[in-house]
């Protein structure tokens, strides 16, 4: 008799614990599902930025968009071989450094060799000729002589 009562009590105790456990599991499942559906509802309003979903016109979001003959992301002129320059010459430094340097074929090749020997530039393979040709064609050396005339002067009235 004593044994039977004790067994019943144990079963009751186990039943209670199982119920609590199930409750906890359900609670977590509820929180989890709520979070998946709407994460904001579980956070304090002050902690969350106001969120609004907007879609961007794929036209505007074109990573390699070209406008008026200029590749917008880098500023390079759109001409034969320019993507080879974008892909091989703008990983370490900006394209501004490329565009402001005016060199002939021989000096560009020497510069490429220097970058390969000391600056971790990879072997350009067939792209080397494409790149050098693009640079000497689109950013040619302009002779400046021993001293240039002042140019692009913005005239203004001097008031003192």
């Amino acid at each position: 008799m004593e044994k039977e009562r004790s067994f019943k009590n144990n079963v009751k105790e186990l039943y209670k614990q199982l119920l609590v456990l199930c409750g906890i599991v359900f609670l977590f499942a509820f929180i989890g599902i709520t979070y998946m559906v709407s994460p904001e509802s579980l956070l304090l309003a002050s902690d969350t930025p106001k969120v609004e979903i907007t879609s961007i016109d794929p036209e505007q979001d074109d990573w390699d968009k070209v406008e008026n003959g200029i590749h917008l992301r880098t500023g390079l002129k759109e001409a034969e071989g320019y993507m080879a320059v974008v892909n091989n010459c703008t990983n370490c430094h900006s394209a501004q450094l490329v565009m402001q340097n005016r060199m002939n074929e021989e000096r560009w090749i020497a510069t490429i060799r220097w970058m390969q020997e000391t600056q971790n530039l990879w072997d350009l393979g067939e792209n080397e000729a494409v790149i050098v040709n693009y640079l000497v064609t689109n950013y040619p050396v302009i002779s400046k002589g021993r001293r240039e005339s002042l140019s692009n002067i913005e005239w203004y009235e001097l008031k003192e």
Partner: protein
Amino acid sequence: MILGVSLIYDQLMKRRNFVRSSVLGSLASILGAEIVYGATMPENYIPLGMQDPDPFALFNKDKEMLVLNSKPWNMEALAHLLDDKITPNKFMFVRNNGLVPENINIKEWALTIDGESVKQKKTYTLEELKNNFKQHTYQLTLECGGNGRKEFDPPAKGNQWDVGAVACPSWTGVRLKDVLEDVGIKADAVYIGYHAIDEHLSRDPSKKPISRGVPIGKAMQEETLLAFKMNGEDIPLVHGYPLRLVCGGWPASTSGKWIQGISVRNIVHDGEKMTGSSYKVPKNPVAPGESVKDEDMRIIESMPVKSLITYPKSGAVLPLDKKLNIRGHAWAGELEVSKVSYSIDFGATWSECGLEKPVNRLAWQHFKASISFPKPGYYEVWVKATDAKGVSQPMLLPGWNPKGYLNNACHRIAVKIS
């Protein structure tokens, strides 16, 4: 590898189609990544990943400054922006060989002095440097060795600086000399070289963007500082916070930024940009465009005499009955400037400008003049400085050199008399 990169971009672009209109959302879209803990990010904090969009805001620079290169960051002033006697940060040029460091741990920052010619290796924390040595403040001229490169013909490789890669802020720090004496230097010391924490452009940790230095004689000068303040405030990050070397009057590349080490060498320092053709000019004059072997080049030491008209801005129009007041600065590397002259007839005649003494050695000097014009028309005002040894600036480009250094040709402005 390129394929891999483009795949990542595809991912980023997909993500960008869900740009959120909140501030954090736009930050995330610029960074191309979600900002974890974005909700707890302080309101005015700008993540370092945003370094691209606005260098002027990022480095507190004036909007008129010229960006030559965004990776690495290089920026210069226009002549009229340099009118202040002491250059404020907003007009100070930015020259980087590598990437601006992003994580500065000020608490653990230490400077280690080592090399073949120290009696023992020694490390100082920032606090020890500031507290154990007397602090000094000097106004020191820093000019990029390649300032003026853009005028060379045939063009020289590198950033095409015009006239604005020069500045003269005031620097506060301790004398390198005092620190080296505390460490103990052997008699065979010939050079010092700095070591800094900036990263190479390729992010290859085995490569250093730059590690230059100066002969021991220059290192031991009173004005050679381990500086932690610029114009009375912590040095701005882009200019070397929290510690930089300042070697006034020498190519600014010798004034290393973000330094954590100085090696005292028994040979000429052979760090990055000390060897090859960097910061070197031919030992003997060469014809424009001539190729020069590395062994025929010498390291640039003191910068040459030079001057800049900082007022008025080029393009002034004024009536015949008005005098034109001009002013500017002149500097001469290790030397003092003894005379500044101006010409309004392309060098046929010269008149002397008023010239102030430097506030201390290696600081630029200020000149001014009041000019009358004989008749209406187009003029150029040319200014020419002469150093203490009688050497003047050339009106034409100085000797061509393969890397386009040391262009100290006279500065000029255009003026119209109506």
